[in-house]
């Protein structure tokens, strides 16, 4: 099946450009982030990078507590099925007291489905140790619980065994351009002018229920 490349008319394209603007992690400093896109079987990246690591960002000493990354995202997908719409998965890392590199937050958000400029605030969370002793041990050893597979953040399965704590926010802005989506019969804009498709992205944030 994989060999049959559909002709141009029967795929739709989703172009994402934007940036991971800033993060708010009140207790931590010197953080960097990794991003990756998680998408379904019917999606394929055609251009751009779908994974990346940002620079380490340090807080301003003054009043503003924001960590600014301004890390650009630029990727184009093609797809034949909106099922498995791409999700942006972010993970933030930084040093702990002993200088070990530990995870400071995971978060995921669906790419907005409507063309245009969108800004999303992604609530972040980290997995927790299951007991107090383990927490102490992990703090001492610098080996915090973390996900071996980042896709867990974007998916529901297997999460029932974990417990998480909410920790910070990251702000991302997207500029979305779609091609042929409407031609193939998929409506992403509502016919009701008062109901925009705002709800899609923000409700999909993995940790929204934690707050």
């Amino acid at each position: 099946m994989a060999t049959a490349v559909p002709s141009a008319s029967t795929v739709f394209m989703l172009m994402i450009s934007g940036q991971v603007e800033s993060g708010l992690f009140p207790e931590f400093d010197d953080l960097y982030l990794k991003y990756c896109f998680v998408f379904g079987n019917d999606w394929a990246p055609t251009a751009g990078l779908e994974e990346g690591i940002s620079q380490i960002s340090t807080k301003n000493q003054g009043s503003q507590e924001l960590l600014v990354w301004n890390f650009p995202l630029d990727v184009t997908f093609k797809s034949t099925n909106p099922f498995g719409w791409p999700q942006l998965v972010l993970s933030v890392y930084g040093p702990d007291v002993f200088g070990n590199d530990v995870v400071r937050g995971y978060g995921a958000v669906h790419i907005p489905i409507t063309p245009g400029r969108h800004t999303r605030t992604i609530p972040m969370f980290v997995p927790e140790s299951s007991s107090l002793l383990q927490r102490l041990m992990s703090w001492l050893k610098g080996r915090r619980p973390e996900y071996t597979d980042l896709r867990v953040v974007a998916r529901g399965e297997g999460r029932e065994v974990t417990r998480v704590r909410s920790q910070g926010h990251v702000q991302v802005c997207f500029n979305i351009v779609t091609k042929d989506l409407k031609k193939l019969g998929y409506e992403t804009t509502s016919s009701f002018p008062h109901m925009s498709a705002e709800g899609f992205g923000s409700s999909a944030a993995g940790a929204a229920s934690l707050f």
Partner: protein
Amino acid sequence: MKEKEKKLNIRWVSLMKCWVLTLMIRICWFTDRPTTQIPKPNVYRRNSSFFLPACIQVTSHEIWLDGVQYELFFVPKTVSTMAKIPFNAQPRYLEEEGLFVGERPWVSNKNMNIMENRLMADPLQGVCWFGGDGRILSLPNPIKPNPTRLFTFPCQHPDPDDALAYRKVVHIQHDERDTTHASRPCQLDVDVHDLTFFHHPLFSREHMLASRLQQLHGQFEARQQARLTAFLTDKLMHFQTFELNDKLEAHQHVLVLCIVTKKGYLVGTHRKTRMLRDMEEQKDRNLLKSILKVWKEMKTLREFQKFTNTSLKLNIIRKEDVSGNREEEYEEGIREEIQQMHDEFQQEYQKQLELFHQHQEHWKTWKKNKVKSECNSDCAELSLLSCVRQPSPEVDKKRFHPVTRTVRRFRVEQQRRQELQRHSLYMKLLFNNKEVSRTAPHILDDSFHIHFGQIFNVQIKRCPESIQLQVLDITSRSSDSLANLFVPIPETSVLAGTALVQHLEFSSERRVTFEHEATGSNDSCFWRCSSSLSSSSPPPQFSPHSTIRPVDAITSIGAVGVTDTRQLARWIKESRLDPNDPNNATLIQLHMVHKDSGQMNTAEFFRLEQLQEEFDFVSEEELLCSRRLRLLQLRNQEQPEFRACRLVPLMDREIPEKVFQDYEKRQNEKNIVDIKEHLVPYRAIVAQYMLKVYIIHPLLFPSTGRWTATGQRIATGRCTTTFSTIVSRIYLLVDVLFLSLILSLQDLVRPFVEVSFQRGTCRTTTAHGPNPSWHEELELPFRTLNGDYSSTNLQSLRDEIYINVFDELTYNIQEGDRETDRETHTRTEKIWLGFINIPFNTLYLQSWIEGTFKINVPKVLLGYRLEQEGLQGFWELQNPSQASYLSVYLTTEPQIMPGEPVREKYESHEEARLLFGAEEYSQRCHAAFPNRRLLSTVMDITGQAVLVTRYLHPLKAPSELLEINPGHHQSTVELLAHFVSLIPFIPDSVTFSGICDLWTTCDQFLTLMCGDEEEHAVLLCCFFLALGKKSWLLLGAAIPEGPTAYVLTKEDNMSYLIWNASSGQRYQQFDSFCPLQSVGSLVGTDNIWFNVQPWDSPMRVNFDVSKTKLWKPLFSHRFPNPGLGSVQPQVLSFQATDRSTAMELQERIEKVLKEKVMEWRPLQPTRWNRHCTAVLRRALPDLELGLVSGSTKPGGNLQHILNEYQMCGFPLQMPFSELWPIVERVHSTGVHECQVPNVEFALAVYVHPYPSNVMSVWVYIASLKRLR
């Protein structure tokens, strides 16, 4: 009227001269008049002769006038119907045929005539304007009978700004219930009136009876009200009077004929009515009886328990008949009935009499009949007497029975009452599932009746989706909801004034049992309660906006409050609705439905999952037909063909039909054994079985996320590959380090290494000499089926990595010596020297392999000799087995991490003490040396944990093998090892998917004909034990297998031998090239020993297990072996393999291989040298025999061929499992790549059968070049 006419006529006379005008008036007058008088158009249409009498009335003046006018003017006359319809056709009146024809718009007859005449003037096209009934075609009259005008609300505060604001038109897919734009909020009143329990867990027995009594009384009252019995009695009376009249009439009139038929019908209905009446009376009677019975029970109960809980009392009033003597009436009734029956029988008798007259010979029958009829009349009387026509007492019920207040003496009852007092109830009103209000809590008293009497006013903006009442029970401890009642949403036209109180019943299925007197609630009875509720709807302006289509027939005509459906039915009948009018369709349908069911009842059924179809994504057929949806479904089911299918095309047409072919084939052939593919039917069946094991197995171990104890890393799901899905390509990296060859040609060997994997090849540069060092990195692309890199797929890959060592030969093919100094033409050829094969699976599970491997060199390598003399001194010590070695490092790029092994605990039949001991032992050992392999319990094929020692048991090897070399102990042992190694090796992770390791017993192993290292080692160890050898199962780590099982034997000269059972190789303990790298533990028949020495390399390990300081045993003095039995069978039965099967197999393999070689050489012709093939075929059995008997005898018969040809070939030996590994092996040797123009090939196959279908396959392949 006459006067009026006259007046007009007089006027005409005066206007005689201008007769033209008069004429006009006259026509108008006549045509106008009938229309004003006759309201129904169809009347005048039918009686078109209606005008005639009026025309006859013309006065004498007009007669001459007519005469003149007809001569002078053309007056359009009615065109005859026949002229207007096509020739030879009969007029059709659709209306009479029952089709719906709308009302035609009225057109004056004169205009009609004019029009018709004009149309008929065209002889060709004229007819098409007329319908089948000969009238001009027309649409139904669009004009409504009553004028309507849109109602506009007077604007209270006209705001100029508002008026000017531009608002874009929005097309709303109208939400039927959305009334957000309604200007004013509406009010919904919910009147929660009272709550009565028919059953409650706190009911005493008396309460139960009381509620039963009440229910029965309710039924009784309902029946009384319905007066069905009285109605039927009346009907009967009428029948009787009618019959009386009939008789009179029959006497008076002569028209008996019609009456006779009528009478027959009447008699039938009469009888039926009587039966019905009797039945109803019986029912009444029974009801009354049961009421009395319950009441009697209640009275006895009250007496028995000496207190009363309920205030219920039944008064039975015997009413004296007002109309007079009832008894007499009753007697009269009976008499009448008997009379009737008598009449009926008389009639029958008459009939029979007639028959008798007709057929004289049946006179006896007649007589009997007569007698019978008399008997019957007696019976009738009897039956009537048993019937219920007795004066019925009337029941009345009043609630004035004193309730006993103090029940101190009765403890249980007291408890019940105390419990009851603790309970109080309140109702919650939920509007669209949101709580709106609640009533005050009411304490439940002994009457189990709560009067709420509370009206909730809810201001609403939109039509409610649900109105719900929740009954909550609060006790001192908790409050819980008893039931949820959904209140039907009132119709929009039901107003506060007109709303009726509705009874809602509910039940709860909770079970309650009490210690005390209360009855509790169990399965048989459930709570029921009736709550009265009146709901009143919003004000009427609610409706103008609603665009609800008529869902309910009754609502659609606006008759919302209609409760008496019978009246409605009557109305439908009386109003004579046009059944063909589409507007009435719903009503008519309703009527029809009820007519069928006999009565106009409200629907007693409901649709399960209504609107389900509407909510379905697509219809079932569409789901099956659409290729795209099917593909998506199959992918979701993780069918192997589609699991890795990416970018499923959006359009059906882009998916080729053949996508499903493989899948369908597999589905169809699930149970068909494909013999062709497997050559031996038996193997085919086994392969089929393995396939099933593979499919079922993953179900045994559901994927769950786990915490691993050590690293605190969270692994979720089964797929724990670390690389992301975006990996597009994976490479196999092979680092070829160095080679040590002990072969040499006459002149220098120029070896190079070629790695072939999945038909891709990559080679090193050519080196010089027998011990070259390359340190070259080779990169091979790695593909999987459909690009699926999930761990389940990778695990079950069966591709093998072949590392081949070749010798490069360069020929000078210059013809003559003319231009030797200027040009050289050389041909390079490669000669295969040996190979190493590593299953990809092994690499996957270990993620990298590094080590020095023994090269499998063919037994006969023509033109090469062993470098015996070079091996002296140090080398002899180092390399006792005299073989060539290659050092390589293999890995993948990017690295693939296998899933973490599952360490689950399984069920076991072992004793708990043993299991516990074994677990403790292995934990302690693991803590001391985590890298050394130890297995105390393993999983057998049924998923049960079994102690590993149970697998070792002396088993006698097949006698055929033992008899070959009766005297030579050593060669027998080697033969057994060879036999075991011939059983195909398939890793467990391939056969039993998932990373768990299943151990099969030896008989299962021989049945399945495949297994991994453990099975081979166990079988070999069992054979050795039977031979009386001291042998153990050695668990450790080796290259390239990783964790594995070997067999350790103690020889007579106190040395130890290490056997690789799956390859049949044996190694000395001090062989530095032994693939075994680490010794973990030893398993004997009765104990397990764990290596606690500081070293684990086999060379440095002391194998004396009696020393507990070096070997930690599982069973010791403190924990003795309880004498474990073996899971192995006592005797292995080996069936002799048929020689003819082997022959057949041999031929087929040869045929396939020859075809393949030709297929691999598409450009050059492939010639087969028959003579050489025959020689080779003869040589092969000797080779096998040589292996068997232990003596090596190179093929000397080839000498005369070698004189003629330059021959390059070698025999290959391998176990037989399937065809493709053989093909792959032959391909990897590269013999077919010979490009010399006149090359010939020889290929011989020999299959040597061993017991139990074990086969040794020999392939001798050679390329021949004629010597000049």
